[in-house]
């Protein structure tokens, strides 16, 4: 069974269709697949400002348990996308029942990801030149168009590359969309499926990265 740990914020919106397509392809290959939304995101309960990283780590555990209960599968593999990769490794990477973790364009760490969100916010502000001074001041506190709690920010900063290095290397497989993308742990198997994802662009336009989906399918169906 594959549990898909989605990315966050605009990246979640952009990949919704692609991850659904992937789930359908994997199901056609005979796999059980579980997609879910973390608390405070998508259709799940709660507001973003009420939740913390620890809730999301727990959500991944819950999703794995639910998927196992429903499907009857004992072995599980995780697909983590962007920040979802970091969360997946931190939450369940070391668990014995996790056979494999496939990571699509994993973020380097929480601090780098927050920087990325600040960059996205700067681009949004650049487009919104007519904000009043008060509005601009308020918007400066947003991250990629979202209010994040102090607790959430602190927890993001504490999520670093150790989340990846805590996982046995042979379980990890990285799929990058750029040759230049770096992964903080050396010696991990890696594929490059060229596609311009432009993660740092402030948009919610859907993407359908066919080469990436093909690569992910191959990784997740490899026995």
């Amino acid at each position, binding site marked *: 069974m594959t549990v898909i740990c989605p990315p966050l*914020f*605009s990246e979640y*919106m952009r990949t*919704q*269709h692609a991850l*659904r397509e992937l789930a359908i392809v994997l199901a056609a290959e005979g796999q059980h697949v579980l997609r879910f939304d973390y*608390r405070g*995101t*998508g*259709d799940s*309960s*709660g507001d*973003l400002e*009420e*939740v913390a990283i620890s809730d999301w780590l727990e959500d991944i555990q819950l999703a794995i348990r639910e998927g196992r209960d429903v499907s009857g599968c004992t072995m599980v593999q995780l697909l983590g996308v962007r920040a979802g990769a970091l969360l997946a490794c931190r939450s369940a990477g070391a668990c014995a029942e996790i056979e494999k973790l496939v990571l699509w364009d994993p973020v380097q760490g929480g601090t780098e990801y927050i920087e990325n969100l600040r960059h996205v916010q700067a681009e*949004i502000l650049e*487009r*919104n*030149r*007519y*904000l009043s001074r008060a*509005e601009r001041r*308020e*918007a400066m506190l*947003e991250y990629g*168009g*979202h*209010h994040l709690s102090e607790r959430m920010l602190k927890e993001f900063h504490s999520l670093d590359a150790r989340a990846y290095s805590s996982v046995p290397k042979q379980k990890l497989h990285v799929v990058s969309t750029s040759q230049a993308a770096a992964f903080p742990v050396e010696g991990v198997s890696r594929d490059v499926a060229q596609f311009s994802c432009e993660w740092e662009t*402030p*948009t*919610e*336009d*859907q993407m359908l990265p066919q080469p990436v989906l093909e690569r992910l399918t191959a990784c997740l169906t490899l026995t």
Partner: protein
Amino acid sequence: MPDPDLTEEPLQFGEGGRIFGILTLPSIPPRITQELPAFVFLSAGVLHRVGPARLHVRLARELARLGFSSLRVDLAGTGDSPPRPGLTNQESVAADCKGIMDVLDSRLGKLPLVLAGLCSGADNAIRLAPREPRVIGMILLDPYCYPDDGFGVREAVNKYTNPVKYAARLKRAFNALKSSHEEKKNGDKSVDYLAIRDLPTREQLREAFVSIQERKGRALSVFTQYARPYYNQAGQLDRVLDVEGYRQCCTELFWPQVEHTFPLELHRRRLVEEIMTWAAGYIRPRTSPGGLAPPQPATVTET
């Protein structure tokens, strides 16, 4: 963290359960909710039911706190609803609409409805409203509007007298000089949403507002900066439609400083507040006679 004010339920309905949506129900006695319309959030463009930056989720939950039920739905080909091959967009939306009406009937009874949508969601709401007599309200975010008589003049004045536009043009020219040939070639990858929209005709647009007016319903239209190529003054929709009693039942807002998909939280908050205030107009004061609240005085404003 269950919300004590509401419950949410995923639904698969329509032929073979092909349409996916989330039903949000308020946790207050049904005798109150039975008097209120239910809201249907139509998915926008290729975005799925949660709406841009979760806007539909937030609206559904805030509305539930006021006592309204709602369904946020993936129209065929979006989110978790598969496309309907062989059908045109309008045929597909009409088929989805039948499924939506049936499931709402079975779950909530024949409640009056408010259709809400952004962009193509607004286009679909406009086409569906006249056909379905139960629709007594529309929330249209960046609906299409045809130019009125003064549109061209206003556009020219805005183009040649706005110093900010000159500054932006200079900046673009400067950036173009800086960027390499390759960057220029790959330059603007933004999607022209207007070009891919299945726009309602002028007649369909008018018919939608006439039907709402005749049903003593209400409509809220919000135009953002995205609409500027076709809408440039608050009140333009009123003039184009020329529907008697428009100002008694329709609120028309022009927010030229706000982006199409409300990417800033402060703009989303403003929109949610506006919609909640508008929706509260359906709630009858305790002292007034039965039925829905009468239409509130509407506004046409630019901010």
